[in-house]
């Protein structure tokens, strides 16, 4: 029996005249948007648009109520303890930068070290590299084990009394591997080191429970959970709220300002300066409602089924070299084609309306570690199904026939 998505019909892009034949394999970059989210965006812009948390008129007040309801909803979605542990930002990148500038920068010096892994997206690499370069602190990059997940022994032995933070991804944006984040948090706790989890690739697929994971910070983006260009979220455990300084200065974060001094609010709303992206927050709320109406186990089982089929099909192609481990639970799979450059593969796939991502996927240190310059990445969403994979595989075969040359890697 063919693997068919029960949710594809919810995504209007596939029924649009221009893209009805689209085979979309770039959900790790951004997920497509279900109708319910698109309608929410239109409704907000035409019926509800207002500046939240500022006006005392009804329209603004309604926006404020909805933003705070969404904060509560997100708290429930990721199983945090308090809504005030949730802050809105532009995306995962900004969320990580907030930790770097608002939490680590005020205390870091040349004696300290920060621990990351070899498989981090540049968003969870560059802020720490720059901070360490500026202060003389050490950036400790943890290697991966044979299954391409963080080497726990190496991580454990790298922690010392001067470790300020461990910042690692939940799911690698290139390899699709899932790191043992709960185990990492347990090890960190014993050493009194806070942990930041980059949850960008996990949020759309896993049932996230920050309390169970035991992390101090968890960052993710709405657009990777079917919310369109919405907003980002940073979870900050309550125990750290007093340690933060504001990163962006502006409206909405002060108790009192005089010519001489400023008294900032004590809560982490001091990290939400300026006008909130209220429309984006509404879209995130709609996306959560959409996902809440689907059994998470059902999503996981379905994606595992699609992923298994994809891996089976790819493994039958002798000219495909898998970069990702053969893990049937991964929704992201990276590979290369022998004798054909990844960018040419992507262009040929595009000729058949197949959208994949090629390049270094903002993870150059990982590619250097793997000894490659680029890779082809296929990532799944709840709309992916067997016919997409069949089309992908047959086009890969044509592409290899058309472009393969043994002078490629001399």
């Amino acid at each position, binding site marked *: 029996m063919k693997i068919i998505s029960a949710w594809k019909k919810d995504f209007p892009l596939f029924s649009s005249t221009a893209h009805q034949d689209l085979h979309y394999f770039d959900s790790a970059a951004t997920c497509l948007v279900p109708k319910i989210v698109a309608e929410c965006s239109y409704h907000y812009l035409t019926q509800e648009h207002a500046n939240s948390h500022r006006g005392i008129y009804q329209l603004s007040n309604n926006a404020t109520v909805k933003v705070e309801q969404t904060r509560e909803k997100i708290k429930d979605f990721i199983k945090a303890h308090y809504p005030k542990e949730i802050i809105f930002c532009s995306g995962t990148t900004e969320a990580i930068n907030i930790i770097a500038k608002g939490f680590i920068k005020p205390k870091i010096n040349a004696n300290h070290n920060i621990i990351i892994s070899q498989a981090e997206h540049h968003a969870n690499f560059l802020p720490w590299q720059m901070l360490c370069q500026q202060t003389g602190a050490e950036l400790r990059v943890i290697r991966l084990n044979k299954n391409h997940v963080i080497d726990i022994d190496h991580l454990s032995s790298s922690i010392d009394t001067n470790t300020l933070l461990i910042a690692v991804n939940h799911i690698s944006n290139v390899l699709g591997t899932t790191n043992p984040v709960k185990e990492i948090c347990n090890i960190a706790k014993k050493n009194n080191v806070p942990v930041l989890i980059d949850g960008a690739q996990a949020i759309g697929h896993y049932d996230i429970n920050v309390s169970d994971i035991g992390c101090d910070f968890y960052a993710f983006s709405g657009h990777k959970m079917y919310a369109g260009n919405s907003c980002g979220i940073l979870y900050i455990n309550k125990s750290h709220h007093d340690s933060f300084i504001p990163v962006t200065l502006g409206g909405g974060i002060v108790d009192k300002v005089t010519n001489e001094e400023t008294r900032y609010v004590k809560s982490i709303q001091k990290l939400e300066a300026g006008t909130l992206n209220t429309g984006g927050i509404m879209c995130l709320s709609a996306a959560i409602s959409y996902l809440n109406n689907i059994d998470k186990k059902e999503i996981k089982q379905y994606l595992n089924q699609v992923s298994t089929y994809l891996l089976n099909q790819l493994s039958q192609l002798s000219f495909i070299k898998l970069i990702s481990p053969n893990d049937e639970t991964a929704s992201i799979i990276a590979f290369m084609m022998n004798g054909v450059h990844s960018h040419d593969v992507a262009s*040929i796939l*595009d*000729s*058949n309306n197949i959208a994949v991502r090629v390049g270094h996927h903002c993870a150059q240190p990982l590619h250097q570690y793997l000894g490659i310059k680029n890779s082809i990445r296929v990532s799944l969403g709840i709309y992916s199904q067997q016919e997409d994979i069949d089309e992908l595989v047959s086009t890969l075969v044509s592409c290899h026939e*058309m472009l393969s*040359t043994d002078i*490629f890697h001399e």
Partner: protein
Amino acid sequence: MNKSNTMYQRELLKHHQFPVGFNQTINANFQAFDENAFCGDEISVEVNCNKKGEIEQISFKGDSCAICRASASIMCQLLKNITLTSADSTILNITSTLKAKGDLHGDLIPLNGIKQYPVRLQCALLPWTTLGNIVQQYKCQIEEVASCKKIG
């Protein structure tokens, strides 16, 4: 393919599969290296140029995509026995034509298909901009010789 892909035309694929000047060892007196920041592709162009400034031999090497390699092959085919000063005009012509309206002619025709794919333009242009670095080296050398003569 469902959509016609204008990039991978037969003539371009010939250059990709049988590239002119690829990995050839020449007695080079000019060499330049460049890379494509977008994908990490690298190319090294070597030129043997005589006292009149004419390109007697030109070759390239590096790990690159079909578009970049074919473009480099066309470059090697087209510019042999041409002066580096004339090559400079050709580089300008290709760069401006690929980025704007109008078509390339003659040996350069296979590159016209890339115009519809702005992200891949840098693949096609990489060999030419690398050769542009050699032209600059040549010009500096000429100026240095001229200033030495003045001082002398």
